[in-house]
């Protein structure tokens, strides 16, 4: 009886240490990606606002507010996640943001938006829209892994 219990405990702790390593890596990857994505956009909010306008989801003025605010939010959230500060809050924000980004990209894809030059008319989607969607889905799965800690 004693030996049986010991065996069960060893199996569980082996599996949970894989999970721990997985979560550790997921946290670093997500945190670093978000922080760097934010850092890049902080430099030129004007260019980001123009990018947002191409998706035609929100009016220009809302795009301006987003272009100024979002990069800083991404940077702080990424850093918090990376350093395990306010980890639950950072994870909640990361999950929400990823969800919103993916929906925005998917809507552009579905509407066949004219994201690049107006020369071709409509139904033009560059390969630059689909790959980010796939990437976001993978990132959401990583975030999902982190949530399992709080079950």
């Amino acid at each position, binding site marked *: 009886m004693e030996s049986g219990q010991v065996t069960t405990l060893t199996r569980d702790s082996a599996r949970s240490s894989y999970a721990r390593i997985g979560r550790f890596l997921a946290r670093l990857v997500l945190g670093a990606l978000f922080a760097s994505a934010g850092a890049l956009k902080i430099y030129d909010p004007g260019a980001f606002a123009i990018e947002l306008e191409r998706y035609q989801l929100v009016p220009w003025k809302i795009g301006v507010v987003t272009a100024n605010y979002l990069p800083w939010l991404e940077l702080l959230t990424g850093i918090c996640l990376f350093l395990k500060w306010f980890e639950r809050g950072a994870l909640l924000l990361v999950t929400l943001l990823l969800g919103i980004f993916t929906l925005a990209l998917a809507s552009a894809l579905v509407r066949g938006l004219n994201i690049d030059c107006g020369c*071709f008319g409509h139904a033009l989607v*560059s*390969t630059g829209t689909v790959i980010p969607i796939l990437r976001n889905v993978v990132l959401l799965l990583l975030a999902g892994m982190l949530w399992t800690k709080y079950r």
Partner: protein
Amino acid sequence: MRKPVFFLLLSFFAASAYGQLVFEQPEQSFKAKPVEGSIVAKYRFTNTGTVSVKIENVQTSCGCTTASLKKTEYAPGESGEIEARFTIGGRIGKQEKAILVTTSDAREKPIQLKLLVDIEDQIRIQPELVLWRVGEQADPKKIEVTVADDAPVKIVSVLSDNPSIKAELSELKPGKKYEIQITPTDLSRQGGATILIHTDYPPQNPQTRYAYARIK
């Protein structure tokens, strides 16, 4: 128990890719000199899907770029190549051209390939245009022609296509800096001339550049 489910979900998302053709380098950059005439870019792709894909249309954003394919149907796993030829024409500076590829598996979502060419300006003509107003004094005007340092080009002669507007070439710095003096003879009415600037490069087909004189 959870791991296999995780991988199943991952593979599901990976398989539902936008279209089965995957391009190795959808965006290509080149540096060119005008004398090269044209740039050829090769876009390699592979059919990563499970069904055969037909390339239905390859469209370019301008007449200066033509695209060609050896065949249109590609089996799963098969690779192919789209060859794009960009004719430089009179252009200088950074050019960005797009090539739209429409495939049978994703007709509403064409793939966009990009061709970026940075064309070095070997000969600078400043200004391109000299202007006089009718009734003005017939003072000569000067056009400066500068040849880039590493360019093996020389200006041989200049010619005005209108005998009443004279063009005279003088060499300020041998092979590098020239001056064209344009002198109109009759400013009582409107007119104009195209100034042909003859070079010696490339030897088999020497380029001619242009400047313009106008009386308005």
